[in-house]
């Protein structure tokens, strides 16, 4: 028996307030399951941003098109890690793909994930980079890299204008398929929670939609911050029309996500069903800081105010940059808090609706704070590798490929 777990649960016993079912003392889903919707949200959001350029022809954000795809890919590669780390039997995790139980929302995740990774994202990145990959496989002087690119061409080195035109067409089709897929990916994550009737804090048809819009906000904010950081690191001037446009989309996503969240709260309060009392206690007590202060005040209202200012007042470039950086960071923190409030908040109160359990995060261990930090930072490391292997900025400076004509 895991004695440290037993010890921590014994210590948690006196911290229970009110009545909970005895089995509810242990909080089942830890910080890792907070990261899961957070990371998939970043993936979906970054992809939606990329699609804006490709599908909706928003020319201004062309400079971050490829970067958004790479950010989405980097985070997607890590998305299953927190899930697997959390399992009681990680070695059996593959059963989800091999013998999925069709009535389970969770069982479908493997397929939604694989569809999105293999069919949409990898294909799209490959098609978009194909011309460069072929060129690099010929010109690269560092031999391991040359072999890497050679393999990456998948044996196709035809880069005639006609072939590239086909790439372009395919890429566009993929993005059109990819956009609903990205929404499906994250809407689906919302459904995992929203479809659980046992938990009144989760059970809501609005959950997937709220997840989708908060995902957009977080993904857009992440790409924006990474773009600003990369420009600074590479000593390149930030494309201000591009940044302004991203800011506009960020503002829109935050407004929609926040409105939906408030709408849901209003509905809960107005209907005031059996669970309303415990939800009120939850929000006024255990979630006071993480929800009222961090998610709503800092994470939603402040960025809405700052980004709103950039829309109504003509501010100098420097101020706008600071505003974007602030609101991007606050939005990311706020949305993390939102995931926390959903996942952890939903487990604080008893399904008897009569009391609360507690959650004490461990520092070390498989589900501790450190592994959460590693899971959170890993995508950035992967992104750095991707940026090294597939530099997204090469294209603008070197060649005008037809891919950008979209």
């Amino acid at each position, binding site marked *: 028996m895991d004695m440290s777990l037993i010890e921590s649960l014994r210590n948690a016993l006196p911290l229970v307030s009110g009545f909970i079912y005895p089995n509810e003392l242990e909080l089942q889903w830890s910080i890792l399951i907070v990261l899961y919707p957070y990371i998939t949200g970043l993936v979906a959001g970054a992809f939606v941003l990329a699609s804006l350029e490709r599908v909706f022809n928003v020319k201004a954000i062309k400079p971050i098109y490829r970067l958004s795809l790479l950010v989405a890919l980097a985070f997607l590669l890590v998305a299953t890690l927190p899930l697997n780390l959390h399992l009681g039997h990680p070695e*059996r995790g593959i*059963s989800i793909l091999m013998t999925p*139980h069709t009535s389970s929302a969770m069982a479908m995740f493997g397929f939604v994930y694989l569809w999105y990774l293999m069919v949409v994202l990898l294909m799209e990145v490959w098609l978009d980079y194909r011309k460069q990959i072929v060129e690099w496989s010929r010109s690269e002087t560092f031999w391991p890299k040359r072999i890497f690119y050679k393999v990456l061409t998948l044996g196709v080195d035809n880069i005639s204008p006609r072939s590239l035109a086909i790439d372009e067409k395919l890429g566009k089709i993929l993005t059109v398929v990819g956009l609903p897929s990205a929404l499906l990916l994250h809407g689906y994550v919302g459904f*995992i929670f929203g479809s659980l009737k046992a938990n009144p804090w989760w059970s809501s048809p609005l959950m997937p939609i709220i997840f989708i819009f908060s995902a957009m906000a977080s993904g857009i904010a992440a790409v924006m911050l990474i773009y600003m950081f990369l420009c600074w690191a590479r000593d390149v001037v930030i494309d201000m029309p591009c940044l302004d446009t991203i800011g506009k989309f960020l503002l829109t996503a935050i407004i929609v996500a926040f409105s939906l969240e408030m709408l849901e709260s209003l509905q809960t309060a107005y209907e005031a069903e059996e669970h309303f009392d415990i939800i009120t206690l939850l929000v006024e007590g255990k979630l006071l800081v993480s929800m009222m202060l961090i998610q709503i005040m800092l994470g939603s209202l402040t960025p809405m105010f700052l980004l709103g200012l950039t829309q109504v007042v003509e501010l100098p470039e420097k101020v706008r940059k600071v505003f974007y950086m602030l609101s991007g960071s606050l939005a990311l923190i706020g949305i993390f808090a939102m995931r926390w409030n959903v996942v952890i908040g939903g*487990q604080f109160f008893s399904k008897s609706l009569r009391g609360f359990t507690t959650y004490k995060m461990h520092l070390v261990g498989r589900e501790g704070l450190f592994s959460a930090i590693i899971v959170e930072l890993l995508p950035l490391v992967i992104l750095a590798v991707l940026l090294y292997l597939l530099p997204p900025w090469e294209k603008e400076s070197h060649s005008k490929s037809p891919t950008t004509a979209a």
Partner: protein
Amino acid sequence: MKNFSRKQFLKTAAGAALVMATRVFSTPLHAADKFFREPPWKRKKPYWGFAVDITKCIGCGRCADACKTENEVPREAFYFRTWVERYIIRRNGEVNVDSPNGGMDPFLPPHDPETVTKSFFVPKLCGHCENSPCEQVCPVGATFKTEDGVVLVDRKYCIGCRYCIQACPYGCRYFHPVLHVADKCTLCYHRIKKGLNTACVEVCPTGARMFGDLSDPKSAITKFYETETTNVLKASMGTEPKLLYKGLDKEVR
């Protein structure tokens, strides 16, 4: 498909719509017919069920203790396949609920006893729901329902994602600290298959717990189902537990 003109397509679609519309209007809606569902125990034999007579429970907690012994449930105060709750309802509407070590430790006398209007014990266990949410959400099918109506977990197959624990509205599941899989009441499947009673029923000194074959019209539990006024927990969830309570107060959740 070449010869299938737009006109023909529209004609076919209109025809199909007409047929469907006729069908809708020609079939009168009998709500009672629609919602009637034959209980599964009318078709399958045997089909196990459980009943609790709250008016008979004295809160001795022997059931919880016997269950832990019989099924090797961890002895800690936060792992139970069955437990007993005590409800104390006061004149001012206040409700106090407790379950000291699942009812295995003594229930202490209530404070201000003169304000208490009523008090009763409620034994809890898995309802082996007909529409069990835990079975529905299990991503690999490790939780399953047997032919005879018992919801079980395959310990060799469970991946330990804990989704079922979240999905159970009754808090009847826990994560086994040694086996790292979800665990719950099996209705003492190893015993009932041999014709024995469940451990909790076996030790109950007042006969508050009842277990039996719902498909047998002569069984005591069928009589109980047919003659007593009973209720289930959280009926609005639509889980249809096969655990019926007699004397269930509205404060019990």
